[in-house]
């Protein structure tokens, strides 16, 4: 039940925030803060003291699963189609749920001073997006999963469409259509999979555990795998279906960018790890070199394009695509190091990219432009902000000692065992990353403040958010074992061989 509570608190909190607006513009954010803090408390309890909130191995339901599931629950929903509520977390899900709630708090901090208009509806959408994402990370029924996959989409669309910047209509529409169409493809593939399973066994079910190991005709298996891949690769995003992302990011309000970069992209990677590869192991094996190649191309291509941007947010958006390329390479290398690396990259990138978008959003909020050519010399004007920018930039580049380094290093280590060439090209990405990152620091924070912008430095709220994310990244960099240990049982249950 605890998982349902996590979502219910957010759903109800969202409605509460909307209703609270009539009492004053300040009320919604307080309600939202309360809901997220409550969720954070529950997640921390799940992490450190599961017994205290009634989680014990006995609560694990018998669903024919393997691996260590911390929490599982099942209830019927639409028996006609064998659809049921199955929620579960294992190490991987729990890590991502924790990331979601944590970044939810950060995005609230980002919105705190920025969203003044129609704040009730904004926080409603914010909380519902988070609830949808938690659903995606915990749903183990394919119908339920698809359901949440779409539920997180609509509120995000509203966030971009209502509170976005100058080109929001185009960006929000593009975001929605890309995700929705690829989602429909996935739905079709889910249904075909269920139908095949029904033909083999005579049981109609969307239960993930039952569908694992469905025997598929070779050609059809490949097609179905590609359908799943298309949906997840769009969300990740992988080149060549990435181009909704720069628009969506640059037009979204800061809080929206934080959620998009920090959490929503991770749902794509999660889907690949949890669904695409385990459901279609053979087809994925055949497809792996292509998947890796797409990842490598993504790393290099997006880095190159990032270098050419004038728009600060677009630049960061392209770096996101580049970093997500590492995740793709990691997933399709499918060995212990690479998978651990992919998961670490997901977590670390969640923090570093969110922080960078907060920097960019903060600058835009202060000077009303994202054009880097107009910027310069901000270090003198806002030293704290600039320091944060530098810290998270070098984190993203992969400075040893911070989380991103661990992730990318492990990915490369794993990929090297599979294909030396691909790993070598992927490594080039690290070099290019340094180039595009340093250009940001040079253009924006060094040099002369040509237009004499006066920037207020960080507010207390922003400072807290940045500080929290710094702690997170340092932890991941210095003692990644915490996360690696949590992810390991999941990976073992997915038949990743550990040395």
């Amino acid at each position, binding site marked *: 039940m605890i998982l349902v509570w996590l979502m219910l608190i957010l759903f109800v909190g969202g409605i509460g925030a909307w209703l609270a607006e009539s009492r004053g513009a300040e009320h919604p954010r307080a309600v939202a803060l309360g809901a997220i803090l409550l969720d954070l408390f529950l997640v921390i309890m799940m992490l450190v003291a599961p017994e205290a909130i009634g989680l014990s191995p006995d609560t694990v339901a018998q669903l024919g699963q393997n691996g260590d599931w911390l929490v599982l629950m099942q209830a*019927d*929903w*639409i*028996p*006609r*189609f064998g659809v049921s509520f199955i929620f579960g977390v294992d190490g991987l899900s729990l890590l991502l749920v924790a990331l979601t709630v944590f970044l939810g708090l950060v995005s609230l901090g980002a919105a705190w001073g920025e969203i003044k208009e*129609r704040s009730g509806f904004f926080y409603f959408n914010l909380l519902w997006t988070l609830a949808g994402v938690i659903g995606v990370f915990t749903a183990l029924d394919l*119908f339920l999963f*698809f*359901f949440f996959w*779409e*539920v997180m*989409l*609509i509120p995000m*669309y*509203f966030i971009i*469409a*209502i509170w976005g910047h100058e080109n929001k*209509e185009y960006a*929000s*529409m593009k975001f*929605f*259509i890309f995700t*929705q*169409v690829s989602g*429909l*493809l996935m*739905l*079709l593939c889910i*249904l*075909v999979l269920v*139908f095949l399973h029904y033909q083999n066994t005579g049981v109609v079910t969307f239960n993930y555990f039952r569908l694992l190991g469905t025997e598929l005709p070779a050609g059809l298996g490949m097609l179905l795998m590609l359908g799943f891949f298309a949906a997840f690769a769009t969300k990740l995003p992988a080149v060549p279906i990435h181009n909704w992302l720069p628009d969506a990011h640059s037009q979204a309000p800061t809080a929206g960018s934080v959620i998009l970069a920090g959490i929503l992209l991770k749902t794509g990677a999660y889907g690949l790890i949890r669904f695409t590869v385990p459901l279609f192991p053979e087809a994925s094996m055949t497809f792996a070199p292509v998947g890796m190649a797409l990842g490598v191309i993504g790393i290099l291509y997006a880095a190159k394009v990032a270098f050419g941007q004038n728009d600060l947010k677009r630049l960061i958006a392209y770096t996101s695509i580049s970093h997500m390329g590492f995740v793709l390479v990691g997933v399709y290398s499918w060995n212990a190091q690479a998978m651990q690396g992919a998961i670490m990259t997901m977590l670390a990138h969640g923090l570093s990219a969110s922080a960078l978008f907060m920097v960019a959003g903060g600058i835009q909020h202060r000077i009303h432009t994202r054009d880097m050519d107009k910027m310069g010399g901000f270090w003198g004007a806002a030293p704290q902000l600039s320091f944060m920018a530098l810290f998270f930039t070098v984190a993203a580049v992969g400075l040893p000692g911070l989380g991103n380094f661990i992730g990318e290093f492990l990915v490369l280590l794993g990929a090297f065992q599979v294909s030396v060439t691909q790993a070598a090209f992927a490594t080039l990405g690290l070099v290019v990353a340094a180039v595009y990152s340093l250009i940001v620091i040079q253009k924006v924070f060094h040099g002369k403040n040509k237009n004499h912008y006066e920037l207020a430095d960080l507010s207390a709220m922003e400072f807290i958010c940045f500080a929290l994310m710094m702690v997170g990244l340092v932890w991941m960099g210095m003692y990644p074992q915490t996360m690696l240990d949590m992810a390991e049982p999941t990976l073992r249950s997915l038949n990743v061989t550990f040395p």
Partner: protein
Amino acid sequence: MSADALIDLLQIIFLTVTTVVVMVTAGFKRDHGLINALTQAGLIGSLLIFVFIKPITPLQVTPLLLIDEYSLFFSALCIIAGIAVTALAYPYFERHNEKNEEFYILLLLGVIGGVVLSSSSHFASLFIGMEMIGISLYAMLAYPVHSNKVAKYPLEAAIKYLVMAGVAVGVLLFGMALIYVATGSLSFDQLALPADATQADQLYVLIGFMMVVAGIAFKLSLFPFHMWTPDVYEGAPVPVTTFLSTLSKAAMAAAALRLLIAAEAFDYPQLTVAMSLLAAASMIFGNLLALMQSSVKRMLAYSSIAHMGYLLVVVIAAAAVPGNLSAESMTYYMTAYFLMSIASFGVVSALSNSGKEMDSISEYQGLFWRNTWLGTVMALTLLSLAGIPLTAGFIGKFYIFTTGVEGQLWFLLAMLILGSAIGLYYYLRLIYVMMLPVRDDLKDDPAARLPMGANLTLAAMIAAIIYLGVYPTQFIETLQSLAGAF
């Protein structure tokens, strides 16, 4: 005729009596409020009558009507459409027309037609039902609209519908005649040819079915028989548009599926191919043309063409899957579409009155903030039309996908995905416009004083859309039981 048959006919009898009472009352006292209330009471009474008196099902009542759960379900839909339109028509016509009372007589006649059509098991009753709806619509469509800009539209719409429907009915009748020549029967379940039928007979029946399908496609406004749809939807007063897009489609679809399955029409692969083409073209062109509209009513008209295309997919699937799955899916989708139609046109109707129609998309700017209630209803309905989870539209689309996968209709499913993708764009565009900041010249709340009945109707529709989207289990059980007849 036995007592059982009379009990099963109670609904139709009740509606007929209501019609007479309303007509006589209107002759003595012209009072819009009174007639509206009488009509509403009669419709609600006929809807609830079977709650108190259990009908005997299934029962063939005369050779013409087959009363079973399936027909009762669609009859109920028709009556609910009548109730909703009655509720919406009152604020729309009040204060603008002096002679509104006849409208309700026509409405009641149309509802009876819908009930007859839903229960038909014979070409004669099919024809009677269709014509009762059609003839009352000719007059309802022409009901005057008191807005200078569009005052000439209703007449144009009515004439257009009259001419086109006349042709369609002619084609349909000719088709029936051809089938009759070969089979010697008009009853749905006696239209299948014996295995040793001559080639000429087979040809007659095939051509006959093609013509019947064309006539039905006209009523369902499937491409390329859709030409009348946008003009009629746009020109008619909004409550009539609501009536046209719900009752006449639901009843027609119900009868069509019954006819095609009972007559084993799917034994003719040519017919399946022709219907597949209709479905694919409707999905693609309906959605494409909807993209280009600046009028909400026209947009919804084209979107209805697309939705009927989606619906046709499950009908075609009946060629390959068991008839009860097809009937179950069709009924679910029709119900979902029915609710969405009433809700969306209901919002347009609530925002409009006979003196001023709110139709241009740009007028909807900021609706979400000007009237949050109507804005929310409209936004949720559009999301449902787009097939987004938490709404009935999603489960409906899921049904179509399931049935299509089971029938292995890959081409149609691909068209469905493509059509839905295009559809997203125009639904979202309207939602986007509604969410934009309020324009200075459109500040006031356009529907500040909406009567209880209209609000209740919208609330009921939106509650049903959400309920069917979140917890459809109970409803599905009902559908499974009523689809058992196939």
